[in-house]
């Protein structure tokens, strides 16, 4: 049982079949859900996320707290662009407030397309907030750092 940082393999296939649209406003709705391992999730379930994840499931998801509700928070898409030969997309940072959360990772998924998985994110360790703010900051949107890049 673990969370491994990875672009989901099914997402790569779905890119070739035109399943996902990251355009701002007119595109799909993407969400980010938080997950725990070691029984830290709701109902003491534990998450396994990685390249083989194909869709969002609630197993191991953290419980609702503060502004975090199960299923995760909606992301604001930044319309894909390119620089040189690299295309990339980004999301605006996401915060959950007045929340008591312990999470080890997250899943970005497309809630407009049957909750199909995009990417699993490993925080590298447990991150916790107690009656506080839990903020996920995406890297700078450029050809070398953006969260999702196709080179």
């Amino acid at each position, binding site marked *: 049982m673990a969370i491994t940082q990875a672009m989901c393999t099914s997402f790569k296939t779905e890119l070739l079949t035109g399943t996902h649209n990251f355009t701002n406003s007119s595109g799909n709705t993407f969400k980010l859900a938080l997950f725990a391992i070691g029984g830290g999730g709701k109902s003491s379930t534990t998450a396994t996320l990685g390249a083989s994840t194909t869709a969002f499931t609630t197993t191991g998801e953290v419980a609702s707290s503060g502004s975090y509700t199960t299923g995760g928070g909606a992301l604001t898409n930044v319309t894909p662009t390119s620089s040189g030969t690299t295309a990339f997309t980004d999301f605006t940072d996401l915060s959950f407030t007045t929340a008591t959360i312990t999470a080890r990772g997250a899943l970005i998924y497309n809630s407009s397309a049957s909750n199909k998985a995009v990417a699993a994110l490993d925080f590298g360790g447990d991150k916790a907030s107690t009656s506080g*703010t*839990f903020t*996920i900051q995406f890297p700078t949107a450029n050809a070398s750092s953006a969260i*999702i890049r196709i080179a």
Partner: protein
Amino acid sequence: MVSVGAGITVMSVNVSTSDGGGLSADQITDLAMDKILNVASTAPEPIRDQAIAFQENIRVVLKEYIDLAGREERATIVQKIREAGQQDLADFIRRI
């Protein structure tokens, strides 16, 4: 045979958390700095030193104005609560 090489990558995110309230001005400053300026460890030393000095200057200014924004927002909230007749609550928030 013709083949086209491409790689698709997912990068890491930063996570900032707080206990018993929102993020501190220092944490918000760090979040902003990560977006504003990144100094590559591979940059030539004189350029890197100059960039780091510039980064520190921006950090100081940014932190000062984030603090100011917090104080001014609280001041507006205090005034609105006072106008609503909740003097004790207004004083409590003013002392935060």
